[in-house]
C-alpha cells in the first residue's frame, strides 16, 4: 500500500530539479584544491605596487598554479598547467614573480607561460622543443621594463645542450638566444642588473663536475667571459650544488665538500671560492644543508645556511660585501635539539628570517641577532613541518609574521603570530580511491535481537525488559537534549537538518601519498580524521570493506589495513605477499569475505561455498571461476583478435528494483530483464569499440554492440544498472553513420519484445545458468544514441534505498569541470523517433526523440563550481528514499545530495512549523474561550423555548 503511495508520489514529481541558490553549501561541499605546495614554488607576492595586500602563490606538486587569499585560504584563481604539458609529473617546474608586479611566470616541462597575478589570465605561452626548462629567471634590469610593465624572462632549456633565451615580458617573443655548444650539463641561470650568469656543470676527466660560469651580456646575449671553478672533488652529482642564488645583488653558488666539513661559497662572476668550516660541535652527521637567500635585487645580500642532523638543527647568517665581494659570517642562530624550518621574507631592503621549530616561532632580521618576535608553538603529533613561506610586517619595534606551512599530513595551514588561521587539506588532491562506510549500523541491536529470537518466550521477555531497563540510563541525556532538539528543529529548515536520516555518512578517501582521510558528509564534508596509512608515494587501493565499525583497506601490494572508522586508529596491519590486481567482495556473507585476485586473473584462495567469481587477467581475458576451485576457470572470454578489454563493469552491489516491469500506455507490461550476474565488458579495437554483455555465471554473451569510427584515445566509459546500460565515446563519420562527435548511448533490456510476456522462461521463479542450457535467455534490447556536447570521463548511477525514485545517470565532464545528473526518463530508448508521441506514449512520459542531447543547466549538480580533474564518482543511498548522496573525487573533492524525483518524503522549505504551532495554539485558545459561551447559549435556549 505504502509502496504504491510512494510510487504515485514519485511519478508525480517533475523530471528535473535544479539546485537552488540557497541550497549551495547546505546540501553540497567542495574542496577546491591545488595539491601539496612545493617548497621552492610557494611564496607571498604583492600583485600590485599600489597596495600592500599580498596573495599566496604556489605551483603545486600536482602542477596546479594557484593564488590563495591568505586571509581565509580561499582560492582566488588556479590553472592546471598539466593541461599544456604532457609529461608534467616527471619534470621540474618553476614559478617566478617580481615584487609589486601583476605578472607571474611559470615553467613546466617545455612550456613557459606568463599569467596575470591578480586574475590568473594567461598573457602568453611558449613551448620549447629542445628539452625541458632547466631554469627560469626574471631579468632585473631598468631597460627591460617595457610598456606592459612586465619584466623580461630568461629561460634555460635543454637536456644536453643548454639554450638561454631572453623572452619579452609582454609578448613572450624571443629577444635573443644563446646556445652553449660545449656539451656541459645545463644547470641554472642567474641574473644581475647588467649580466646574465649561465651556470653549467662541466664533467671533469676522472670524476665529478667543475662549475662553469658563462657571463652573457643582458642586452645582446653575447658571451663576455667565462670562468671554471675547480669543484670536481666536491661535486659528484648536480644535486651536490646546494644553491645558486639568483636575482640578488650578488648572486652566489654554495656547495660543501664530501665530508660536510667545509662550506664553499663563490660569488658568481668572481674566481674566488670562500671556504668556511662548518662548526659541528657534537660531531653528529649532518643530514641536510640548506641555503636560504632573498630573491630580490634591492635586498641586502645576506643569506642563511641551515644545518640539520638527526636530532638537532642550527643556522648561520652570512653577509656579502658588495664592494669587496667578500663573504663573512654575521651571526649564528642557536642550536636546538629539534627540527627547524626557515623561511625568508623581504620588506624593502631588509631581509627577515623566520625560524619554525616544534616549540616556537621566532623572527629575526638578517642584520642583527636580535629576535624581533617570538611565539610559542604547540606541535601536534603527525604535524611535522616540511617547509614554509613567510611574510613579515615590522611595526616600530614589534614584528608580525604570517607563514604558510606544509605539514606532514598534507595540510597546508597559515599561521599568523602563532595562531592557525586556516587549514587546507591539500593531501586530498591526490585522492585515488574513495568508499562509503557505514558509521554505526546498529550491529549491537541486531545482535541483541538475534539473542532474543533464539531464546524461549519467557527468557526473551526477561531479556527485553533488561535491555529496556539498560536503555533507561540514556533517558536523562535524552531529556536534557530534548529542548535543544525541539528548538533546532523549529528554527532550521528540514533540508539542512537531516543527519538522522542517514545523510551523515563517512567517506574514506585514500590518497596517492599513503594517507587515509575520513570525510563526514553530515558536517559539510569536514575531515574527521587524517592518518598516515602507508609509507609510499604511490598507494594503490583495490577495495575498502566495512564491517561493524572497522574498515579494511586492501592495497595493490596485497597488504591490508584495518582502521577504526570513528577514530581513525589503525587496529591491525597485514603485510602483503602477492600483488593483487583486484578484489572480489562476498558482500552477502555476514563477515564479508574478501578474495584477492592475482594479475593473471587467478583468485588467491578457494572457499567451500557456492558462488562464482569473475576476474580480468593481464593478457586481456575475462575469466569465470567457481569459488570452490581456483585451479582452473569455468569459462574464459577472449575478445576477437585486435580487440583488448579496457573496462568491465557490473551492476552496483546495492541496486534495488522497485518494479520488475515497465507499464506501457495501454496498461500492458514490458518485463525488465533483471539479472544480477550481468557484466558489461568494453573491448577496444583500432578504431572500434565493442560492448559485450555477459552472463557472469555461464560466460554466455547475451548481447553485443559494435561502434565503428571510434577514437580510442578519447574517454570511453560505461555503466550498467537495473535493466539498462549506457556508454559514451567519440565517433567519426563512417560508411554506416553520419554522426561525428561525442555520443551517449543507452540500451534497455527486456525479457521479451511482446508486452505481457515473460520470455522463454515464462513464469519460472528461478533458473540456473549452469544446469539449464537455455538460461539465461537473451534479452530484448532497445537502444538509442544521443549526440552530446562534450566528453564524459566517468559515469555512475544514483542509488536510493528501495529504487523507487527514478535514477540519474551521473556523468563527469572533464572539459567543463562539472558533474551532471541526467534523469533517466530523458534517456529512454523508447522515445518515438521522427514522429510525435501517441496519446498512450505521452501517458508513459515519452517525448519525441531528438538526436542532440543538450545538457540542461538544471542537470548540473555542481552548478557554477569548477571541479577539477575528477577521477571517480560514487553514490550511496540514505534512509530517505528520495535522497541519494553523490561524491566525486580526483584533484578536487565534491559531495552533494540529489533528489531525482524531488524531496517527496521531507517537509519542504515552505512548511513553517512555527506557523503550524501558532495556528494550533490560536485554535486551542479560541475553543477554550468559546466553550463556556456556547454551553451557556445552549442551556438558555432550552430554558427559553
Amino acid at each position, binding site marked *: 500500500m505504502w509502496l504504491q503511495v510512494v510510487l504515485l508520489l514519485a511519478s508525480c514529481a517533475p523530471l528535473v530539479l535544479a539546485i537552488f541558490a540557497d541550497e549551495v553549501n547546505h546540501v553540497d561541499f567542495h574542496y577546491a584544491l591545488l595539491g601539496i605546495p612545493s617548497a621552492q614554488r610557494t611564496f607571498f607576492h604583492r600583485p600590485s605596487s599600489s597596495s600592500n595586500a599580498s596573495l599566496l602563490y604556489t605551483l603545486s606538486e600536482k602542477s596546479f598554479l594557484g593564488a590563495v587569499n591568505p586571509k581565509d585560504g580561499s582560492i582566488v584563481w588556479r590553472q592546471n598547467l598539466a593541461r599544456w604539458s604532457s609529461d608534467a609529473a616527471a619534470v621540474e617546474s618553476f614559478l617566478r614573480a617580481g615584487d609589486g608586479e601583476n605578472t607571474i611566470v611559470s615553467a613546466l616541462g617545455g612550456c613557459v607561460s606568463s599569467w596575470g597575478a591578480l586574475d590568473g589570465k594567461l598573457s602568453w605561452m611558449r613551448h620549447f622543443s629542445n628539452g625541458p626548462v632547466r631554469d627560469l629567471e626574471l631579468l632585473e634590469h631598468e631597460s627591460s621594463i617595457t610598456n606592459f610593465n612586465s619584466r623580461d624572462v630568461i629561460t634555460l632549456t635543454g637536456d644536453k645542450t643548454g639554450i638561454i633565451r631572453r623572452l619579452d615580458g609582454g609578448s613572450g617573443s624571443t629577444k635573443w638566444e644563446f646556445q652553449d655548444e660545449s656539451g656541459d650539463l645545463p644547470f641554472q641561470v642567474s641574473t644581475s642588473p647588467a649580466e646574465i650568469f649561465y651556470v653549467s656543470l662541466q664533467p671533469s676527466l676522472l670524476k665529478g663536475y667543475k662549475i662553469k660560469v658563462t657571463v652573457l651580456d643582458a642586452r645582446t646575449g653575447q658571451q663576455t667571459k667565462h670562468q671554471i671553478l675547480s669543484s670536481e672533488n666536491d661535486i659528484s652529482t648536480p644535486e651536490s650544488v646546494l644553491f645558486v642564488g639568483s636575482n640578488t645583488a650578488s648572486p652566489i653558488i654554495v656547495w660543501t665538500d664530501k665530508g660536510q666539513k667545509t662550506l664553499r661559497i663563490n660569488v658568481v662572476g668572481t674566481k674566488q671560492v670562500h671556504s668556511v668550516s662548518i662548526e659541528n660541535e657534537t660531531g653528529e652527521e649532518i643530514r641536510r644543508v640548506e641555503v636560504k637567500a632573498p630573491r630580490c635585487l634591492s635586498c641586502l645580500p645576506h643569506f642563511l645556511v641551515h644545518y640539520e642532523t638527526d636530532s638537532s638543527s642550527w643556522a648561520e647568517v652570512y653577509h656579502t660585501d658588495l664592494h669587496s665581494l667578500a663573504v663573512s659570517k654575521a651571526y649564528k642562530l642557536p642550536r636546538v635539539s629539534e627540527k627547524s624550518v626557515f623561511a625568508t621574507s623581504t620588506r624593502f631592503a631588509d631581509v627577515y628570517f623566520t625560524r619554525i621549530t616544534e616549540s616556537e616561532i621566532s623572527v629575526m632580521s638578517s642584520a642583527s641577532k636580535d629576535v624581533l618576535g617570538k611565539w610559542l608553538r604547540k606541535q601536534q603529533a603527525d604535524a611535522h613541518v616540511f617547509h614554509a613561506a613567510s611574510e613579515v610586517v615590522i611595526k616600530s619595534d614589534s614584528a608580525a609574521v604570517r607563514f604558510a606551512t606544509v605539514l606532514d599530513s598534507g595540510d597546508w595551514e597559515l599561521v599568523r603570530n602563532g595562531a592557525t588561521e586556516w587549514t587546507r587539506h591539500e593531501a586530498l588532491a591526490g585522492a585515488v580511491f574513495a568508499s562509503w562506510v557505514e558509521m554505526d549500523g546498529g550491529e549491537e541491536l541486531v545482535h541483541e535481537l538475534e539473542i532474543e529470537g533464539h531464546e524461549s518466550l519467557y527468557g526473551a521477555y526477561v531479556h527485553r525488559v533488561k535491555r529496556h531497563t539498560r536503555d533507561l540510563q540514556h533517558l536523562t541525556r535524552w531529556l536534557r537534549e530534548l529542548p535543544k532538539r525541539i528548538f533546532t528543529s523549529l528554527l532550521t529548515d528540514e533540508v539542512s537538518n537531516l543527519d538522522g536520516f542517514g545523510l551523515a555518512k563517512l567517506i574514506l578517501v585514500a590518497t596517492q601519498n599513503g594517507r587515509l582521510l575520513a570525510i563526514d558528509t553530515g558536517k559539510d564534508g569536514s575531515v574527521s580524521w587524517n592518518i598516515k596509512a602507508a609509507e609510499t608515494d604511490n598507494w594503490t587501493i583495490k577495495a575498502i570493506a566495512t564491517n561493524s565499525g572497522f574498515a579494511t583497506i586492501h592495497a595493490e601490494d596485497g597488504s591490508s589495513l584495518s582502521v577504526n572508522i570513528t577514530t581513525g586508529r589503525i587496529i591491525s596491519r597485514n603485510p602483503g605477499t602477492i600483488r593483487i590486481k583486484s578484489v572480489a567482495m562476498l558482500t552477502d556473507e555476514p563477515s564479508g569475505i574478501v578474495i584477492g585476485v592475482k594479475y593473471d586473473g587467478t583468485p588467491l584462495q578457494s572457499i567451500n561455498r557456492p*558462488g562464482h567469481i569473475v576476474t580480468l587477467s593481464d593478457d586481456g581475458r575475462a575469466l569465470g571461476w567457481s569459488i570452490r576451485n581456483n585451479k582452473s576457470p569455468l569459462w574464459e572470454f577472449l575478445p576477437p583478435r585486435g580487440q583488448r578489454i579496457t573496462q568491465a563493469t557490473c551492476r552496483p552491489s546495492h541496486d534495488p528494483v522497485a518494479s*520488475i516491469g515497465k507499464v506501457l500506455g*495501454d*496498461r500492458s507490461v514490458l518485463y525488465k530483464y533483471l539479472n544480477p550476474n550481468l557484466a558489461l565488458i568494453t573491448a577496444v579495437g583500432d578504431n572500434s569499440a565493442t560492448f559485450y554483455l555477459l552472463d*557472469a555465471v555461464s560466460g554466455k554473451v547475451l548481447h553485443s554492440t559494435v561502434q565503428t569510427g571510434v577514437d580510442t584515445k578519447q574517454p570511453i566509459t560505461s555503466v550498467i544498472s537495473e535493466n539498462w546500460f549506457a556508454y559514451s565515446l567519440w565517433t567519426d563519420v563512417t560508411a554506416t553513420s553520419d554522426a561525428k562527435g561525442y555520443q551517449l548511448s543507452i540500451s534497455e533490456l527486456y525479457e521479451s519484445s511482446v508486452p505481457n510476456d515473460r520470455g522463454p522462461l515464462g513464469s519460472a521463479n528461478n533458473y540456473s545458468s549452469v544446469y539449464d542450457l537455455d538460461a539465461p535467455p537473451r534479452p530484448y534490447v532497445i537502444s538509442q544514441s544521443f549526440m552530446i556536447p562534450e566528453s564524459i570521463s566517468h559515469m555512475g548511477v544514483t542509488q536510493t534505498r528501495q529504487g523507487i525514485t527514478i535514477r540519474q545517470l551521473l556523468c563527469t565532464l572533464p572539459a567543463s569541470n562539472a558533474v551532471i545528473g541526467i534523469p533517466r526518463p530523458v534517456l529512454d530508448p523508447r522515445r518515438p523517433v521522427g514522429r510525435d508521441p501517441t496519446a498512450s506514449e505521452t501517458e508513459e512520459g515519452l517525448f519525441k526523440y531528438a538526436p542532440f542531447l543538450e545538457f540542461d543547466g538544471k542537470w548540473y549538480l555542481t552548478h557554477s563550481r569548477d571541479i577539477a580533474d575528477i577521477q571517480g564518482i560514487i553514490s550511496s543511498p540514505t534512509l530517505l528514499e528520495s535522497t541519494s548522496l553523490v561524491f566525486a573525487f580526483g584533484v578536487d573533492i565534491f559531495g552533494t545530495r540529489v533528489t531525482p524525483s524531488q524531496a517527496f518524503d521531507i517537509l519542504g522549505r515552505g512548511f513553517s512549523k512555527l506557523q503550524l504551532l501558532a495556528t494550533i495554539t490560536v485554535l486551542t485558545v479560541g475553543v477554550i474561550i468559546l466553550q463556556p459561551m456556547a454551553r451557556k447559549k445552549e442551556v438558555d435556549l432550552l430554558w427559553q423555548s
Partner: protein
Amino acid sequence: MASSSSSSSLHPEPPPEWLTRLHTPLPPRPARTSHIPDPPGYSSKSTGKQRNQQVLSPSTRPAIETDTLKLKKAWEIAFAPSKQIPMNAIMMYMSGNSLQIFSIMMVFMLFKAPIQGLLMTNTAFAKFETDGTRAKLRGVKAVYVLMQLLLLGLGVWKVNTMGLLPTTRSDWLAWESERQPLERAYFAFG
C-alpha cells in the same frame, strides 16, 4: 418540543368535531342518488387515503380491471431505469476519464442508484402485488432487474474506462516477483 409533547400527554383533549369528520370516510352514496351528477368542481377523491381505500375496496371496481392497471403501472416502473441509460451514458461519456471529484461522484451515484434499486425490487412492486398479478409480476421484476443491471453495467464500463478495474497485467505487477538466478557471481573488476 419535549415540553409541548409532555403537555399534550398530560392533558388529553378529545379531538374536535371537524377533525373526526375529516378523518372518517364518506359514507357510500345511496344507490338511488347515483344518477345525480356531482356538482361542478367537486371531486369525490378528496384525500389520498380515501382514494386508496376506494381503490382497494373490491366493491368499487372490478378486480380484473385493477389488475391490468396495476400490471401496466408495474411495467412502467420496470422500464423506468432504462430511460436513464441514455442520459447517464452521455453524462459518463462527457465527464472524462480522469480521476476528479466530479467524475468520481458521478460514478458513485451511477453505482448507488441501481444497487439500491436492486435491493428494493420487492418493495417497489409490493403495491402491485395481488393474488392475480403475482405470477405476471415475476416477469416484470426480471425486466426491472435487467434494466438495473444494464445501468450497473454502464457504471462498470465507466470505471473500466477510468482504468480503475484491475483487468490489465500492470495491475497485478506488484504481486509478481523478480526471477532469481540460482547462482550468484561476484565481480573482481578492480
